[in-house]
């Protein structure tokens, strides 16, 4: 019997159409729009001004404070302007607009294809390099990696988990990375182990990727302390706490971090980015993005420079189908419909999914029939129907008692509701209101 997390979860149609498509390089776009906030935490401060010449990989915005991240130019060219852009989050953010001229990389980046296995630098150096390279969690949460790697004093990390679950339907970017860059990913994992001071790492992969499991199992025999574990296919297994529970049986208590149970989780893409930053001096300015859709002529996995408008990606995939109703940034479960096709690719964008009009529209909302399906599927043991009602009625204190802030917004409840109730919409509203109210209370 394969391992999985015990409570809740759903299994949406997988639709991993692009699992067999090797990673391709998307041509460098004629201009890029790089938002200065591509991570959780304080936005970065721009270091360049209009008219400045920049090189590919050059630092163009510096992280402000500890929980923040550096931003690097993804192209070489001239800074056109500093302005606002509506990015994948749907809000207006300050961004740098750069016009591309050639593709001239910073000299320090090692562009050779050699794989460097020896890790020569110290623990502190690794963390410093990750911070300098602007590495953030590439699974979608974009939490700055150097913060996660700096284990707070008094706590000990005994285990590293590499997240190769990719439980979101449609997405295949991590799957392809495991198959094509497996060795580099495992070297990255070894680097992460060294930084965390642990000698054990588990790679969790869902059983719908047997080729990746086999490939990494073969490779892992050459790496000390790394083991590969197949997992039962269940959404949202890629969520940090669910993955820890599935692999180790340890439960991260509500309001605590994985480090409190001695575990740190990093994504496959992050492991590769760490490898590139430490061994190749390459900052994070490109990532693998899955572009897929039922009527898309040529879906695939592309290495895309950050700041590339998603329309370039759609064109590379054969152009926008006429029946497109929504374009989703990320996976269909947790992703967000984008505002327009000029939205730039950012560090946290793992996929772009084109959903046909016939499947994207919301269904008519009917009354709750008290079937409790939402309660059954909630991986956190919450009661979504109740949280929605409380949020709707404005009973935020009670909602806080019902642990509304524990919700990770996986969307399993809305997905499963037979009455098509917008459960997550209202839980999100309640969550943000509760967070705001408690922040206001703390200020007083």
């Amino acid at each position: 019997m394969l391992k999985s997390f015990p409570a809740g979860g759903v299994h949406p149609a997988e639709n991993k159409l692009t699992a067999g498509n090797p990673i391709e390089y998307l041509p460098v776009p004629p201009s890029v729009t790089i938002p200065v906030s591509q991570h959780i935490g304080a936005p970065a401060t721009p270091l360049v001004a209009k008219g400045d010449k920049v090189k590919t990989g050059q630092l163009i915005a510096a992280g402000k404070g500890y929980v923040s991240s550096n931003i690097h130019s993804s192209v070489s060219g001239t800074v056109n302007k500093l302005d606002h852009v509506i990015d994948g989050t749907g809000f207006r953010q300050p961004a740098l607009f750069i016009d591309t001229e050639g593709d001239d990389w910073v000299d320090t980046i090692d562009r050779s294809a050699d794989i460097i296995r020896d890790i020569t630098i110290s623990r502190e150096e690794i963390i410093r390099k990750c911070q300098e390279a602007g590495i953030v969690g590439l699974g979608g949460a974009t939490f700055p990696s150097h913060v996660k790697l700096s284990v707070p004093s008094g706590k000990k990390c005994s285990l590293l988990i590499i997240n190769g679950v990719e439980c979101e339907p449609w997405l295949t970017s991590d799957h392809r990375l495991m198959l094509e860059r497996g060795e580099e990913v495992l070297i990255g994992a070894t680097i992460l182990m060294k930084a965390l001071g642990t000698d054990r790492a588990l790679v969790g992969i869902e059983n719908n990727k047997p080729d990746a499991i086999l490939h990494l199992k073969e490779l892992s025999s050459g790496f000390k302390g790394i083991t590969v574990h197949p997992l039962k296919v269940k959404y949202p297994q890629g969520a940090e706490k669910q993955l820890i529970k599935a692999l180790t049986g340890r439960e991260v208590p509500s309001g605590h971090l994985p480090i409190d149970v001695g575990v740190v989780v990093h994504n496959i893409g992050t492991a590769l980015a760490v490898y590139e930053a430490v061994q190749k001096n390459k900052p994070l300015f490109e990532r693998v993005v899955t572009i897929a859709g039922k009527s898309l002529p040529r879906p695939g996995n592309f290495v895309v420079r950050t700041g590339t408008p998603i329309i370039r990606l759609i064109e590379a995939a054969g152009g926008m189908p006429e029946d497109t109703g929504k374009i989703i940034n990320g996976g269909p479960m947790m992703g967000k419909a984008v505002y327009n096709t000029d939205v730039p690719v950012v560090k946290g964008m793992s996929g772009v999914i084109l959903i046909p009009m016939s499947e994207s529209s919301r269904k008519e909302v009917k009354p709750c029939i008290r079937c409790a399906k939402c309660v059954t599927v909630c991986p956190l043991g919450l009661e979504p129907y109740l949280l929605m009602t409380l949020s709707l009625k404005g009973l935020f204190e009670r909602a806080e008692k019902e642990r509304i802030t524990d919700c990770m917004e996986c969307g399993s409840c809305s997905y499963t509701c037979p009455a098509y109730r917008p459960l997550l919409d209202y839980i999100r509203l309640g969550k943000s209101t509760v967070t705001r109210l408690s922040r206001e209370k703390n200020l007083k």
Partner: protein
Amino acid sequence: MSPTVLITIISLSAIALTAAVILYFVAQKFKVYEDPRIDEVQAVLPAANCGACGFAGCRNFAEALVEADSFEGLVCPVGGASVMEEAARLLGKESPAVEPTVAVLLCNGSPEFRHRTSVYDGSADCRILHNLYIGESDCSYGCLGKGDCVRACNFDALHMDPVSGLPVTTDDKCVSCGACVKACPRNLFELRKKAKKDRKIYVACSNRDKGGPARRACKVACIGCGKCQKVCAFDAITIENNLAVIDAFKCTFCRKCVTECPTNAILEINFPPRKPKVEATAESINS
């Protein structure tokens, strides 16, 4: 009469009498004195229990009025001057002047002026839309049009205009309780001083972006150019964060700023039509 019935009547009467005596003394012991004037004042209040005064309901407000030394800061906006005067007469106190106000929407972004650049098909709730993304137009300050204010209004004073997609206030019904002010996630409502004949002149915009982006998002956005400020002879207009604000207490309704505004962001409502020369402008603004 049989002895059983007699015994029953006597014993029950004895129990009732004892209980009455006990209850009398308990009632005396635990008596709570309540000012009878509270009931009188409460009878005068509108009984809307809307919370506009800042208290939980009309009863709490009545208690506060009775206890207060002066009426300073205590106003029932629903009842207005007449109710406050009546309450003051009952309590023998001075009632301060009550300025009647009315809710106005500081946005005029109908689809005609503000292009819809995306379609939202989620829950029809402004708060959810506001938390989710910038909104259906490029303006991140304007009305979202999902009617949170209409649902919040207990006095039937707001309704959605199907053409403009914006809420419209019925001035006669608005009691300026402030429910819409609280309900709007974008803070688009202002309680503005009521003038005679319900006349209003105000900047119907809340966009604090610079001129260029504001104008691109909406044709009738305030671009903060300052022309209205220059033309105003009464210092009623201030510009802050690229947005002009007309002080209703200083404004004399001369209407000079309305014609001066290059984007028609300043609205004049309930005015007689102007002389032919400028009539076209006034009409297009009012439409």
